[in-house]
């Protein structure tokens, strides 16, 4: 039980909170056809961290996160500039910017002593969910005592704060986000600052990606931006319901994926665990596959059955 509380419980909590934050924002990315901006942002976090480290010389969370934030904002700015000034299509602009920045990050990493300071590309990609330990926890009742929170892992603290802030913003500005997402023309004519809302949304995506990626790695961040939102999109036409569903899907994928990765191998008699971040992405993908096939209204199978029934009817 203690093992579960110190090792598995915080990791699952981090995964669920990541899924919630990224999933909520992901709905808007998917609806605005900006899903790949999330992809680009989570890739440029690496050069950001390396530069953050080179400037401050420490591996403390704050400078690295600021570096990653800076890189994210710069990359989005570059993508927009290349798109507007150069007239390049947005997919190509994204591709040019994130590969160039990632390459710069790798060269910096290899050329400086950053690679000795426990910063490496693999870590940035996979994350390390399993090393999120909450040592002060020995029983559930400890959660009610003050002391336990002193040893709370910092990744958990960061992600709790970010999740609360982003959820609050989305609930407060729900109406504005909804109008600007579905009908920017109407939003402009109503006097809403469409461009500003879009920029703030991208900055929130960057914040979420940076807060999450230290714990879970950039690939799981991308999966959480896209898969739960896409799954929810297959299930409903109502934006509020879609947001709730995406959180639910993300939570199910996090718990299921973690349990399968941590305890699945034991069922086959192996003591080693699999990568939890990877497994959560896989479960999220499987859930999405299931809804793409069998969603009540938009699933391929259900559409096919309805088509057959209509044919008979006629």
């Amino acid at each position, binding site marked *: 039980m203690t093992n579960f509380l110190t090792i598995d419980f915080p990791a699952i909590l981090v995964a669920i909170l990541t899924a919630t934050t990224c999933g909520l924002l992901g709905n808007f990315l*998917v609806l605005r*056809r*900006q*899903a*790949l901006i*999330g*992809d680009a942002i989570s890739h440029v976090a690496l050069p950001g961290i390396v530069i953050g480290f080179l400037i401050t010389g420490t591996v403390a969370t704050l400078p690295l996160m600021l570096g990653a934030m800076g890189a994210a904002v710069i990359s989005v700015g570059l993508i927009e500039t*290349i798109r507007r*000034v*150069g*007239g*390049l*299509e947005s*997919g*190509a*602009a*994204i*591709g*040019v910017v994130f*590969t*160039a920045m*990632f*390459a*710069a990050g*790798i*060269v910096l990493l*290899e050329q400086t002593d950053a690679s000795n300071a426990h910063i490496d*590309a*693999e870590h940035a*990609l*996979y994350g390390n969910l399993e090393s999120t330990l909450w040592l002060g926890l020995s029983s559930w009742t400890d959660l009610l005592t003050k002391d336990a929170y002193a040893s709370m892992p910092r990744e958990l603290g960061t992600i709790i704060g970010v999740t609360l802030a982003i959820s609050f913003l989305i609930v407060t500005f729900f109406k504005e986000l909804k109008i600007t997402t579905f009908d920017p023309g109407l939003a402009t004519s109503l006097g809403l600052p469409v461009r500003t809302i879009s920029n703030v949304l991208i900055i929130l995506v960057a914040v979420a990606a940076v807060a999450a990626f230290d714990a879970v790695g950039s*690939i*799981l961040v*991308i*999966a959480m*931006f*896209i*898969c739960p*939102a*896409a799954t929810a*999109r*297959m299930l409903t036409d109502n934006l509020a319901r879609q947001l709730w569903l995406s959180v639910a899907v993300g939570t199910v994928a996090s718990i299921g994926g973690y349990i399968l*990765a941590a305890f699945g*191998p034991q069922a086959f008699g*192996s003591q*080693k665990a*699999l*990568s939890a*971040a*990877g*497994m*959560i*992405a*896989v479960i*999220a*993908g499987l859930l*999405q596959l299931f809804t*793409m096939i069998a969603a009540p209204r*938009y699933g*391929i199978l259900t559409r096919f059955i309805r088509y057959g029934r209509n044919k008979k009817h006629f």
Partner: protein
Amino acid sequence: MFEKALAVFTFQAGYNTSIVMAGVVALGIGGGVIGVFPFLRKRTLISNAISHATLPGIGLAFLMGITLGGTGRNLMLLMAGAALTGALGVLAVQWIKNHTRLAEDTAIGTVLSVFFGFGIVLLSHIQTLKGGSPAGLNSFLLGSAAALTAAEAQLIAFSAAGVITISIIFFKEFAVVAFDEDFAAAQGWHTTRIDLIMMALLLAIVTIGLKTAGLILVVALVIIPPAAAWFWTMRYNRMIVLAGTIGGLSGWIGGTVSALVPKVPTGAVIVLVAAAIFTFSLLFAPARGVIAWGIRHIFLKFRIAETCGLIAIANGFMPPDTLARKIMRWRGYLDINGKLTQSGATAAEDRQRQQHLWFAYQERYPDADRSLNPLTNGKIESVLPPDILAELENKTT
């Protein structure tokens, strides 16, 4: 230092370095050429889904190699596995895009993260196996061109040549689909099939480039050179040649730099060289570059001001616009005191006549090409054939 650089640059710096150089140059050319088609098709980022989707294939091939009793590091086997799941990834993107309500960017994001996630799970499993250190597999992530063997370089060169040949064979098909998909479909082309061939070529280049550039950066070889070439020309065939050249050049310079400076990953340097060429093209290319565009914009503004000024004069007004007056004074249409000169009067009259002709032309042929207009083409005599011109003259007088 310089002599050494020259030696590497001209393939004279020893057997190993030359092999690496030949490999990366071939890869750069192949990536640049094949990248043009998805670029024009506005589907560049599908290469990102492909490259990430190769990871589970690499893991599976490694596991299979071990089960068959080898070390699992057979490059052919690993590449076959990579190609297999990469192909699955492309098909998955197509399937999601065509059969569900989700858009292509969502499809790409889903495929790349889920396939890669599965790949990571496999790698974490391989790590727990006895003797199954994934050290050799990690090089697929970030690439290791320095470890290229002669056989591998040969494989890259042959595959790149094959990919280029096939793309030249399908030159017309790709162009039709890239520029007007609906037209292609209406003309009876099998657009889906053509798309799949394009994706297969992309997959081939990504797979052979994996070990050299790494799976995150290999996409840069098919994205950046075509994007840079786009700024230099408006013509499809020239763009292909240019993209291949830019890709090859990036490989050549990048290979040289990484051979000279210790501890630089070749793939990343090649990408940075390509990105530098891209930035230069974005700014300075004459066809679509930012500066050239700005200069053209200014000239257009001058021409509009001049035309408006002359027409105002022909109708008995003085142009109120100071820019127009400045240009006309510089042209000698107005003298120092702002009085109309003889040449100015002639020019104004001529301009007025031109304007009438243009209006008459647009009235007579309303469906004519709208890009034919006084501002982009200047004198009407240089654009329209004499018979139409005579007809218009009759109409206006």
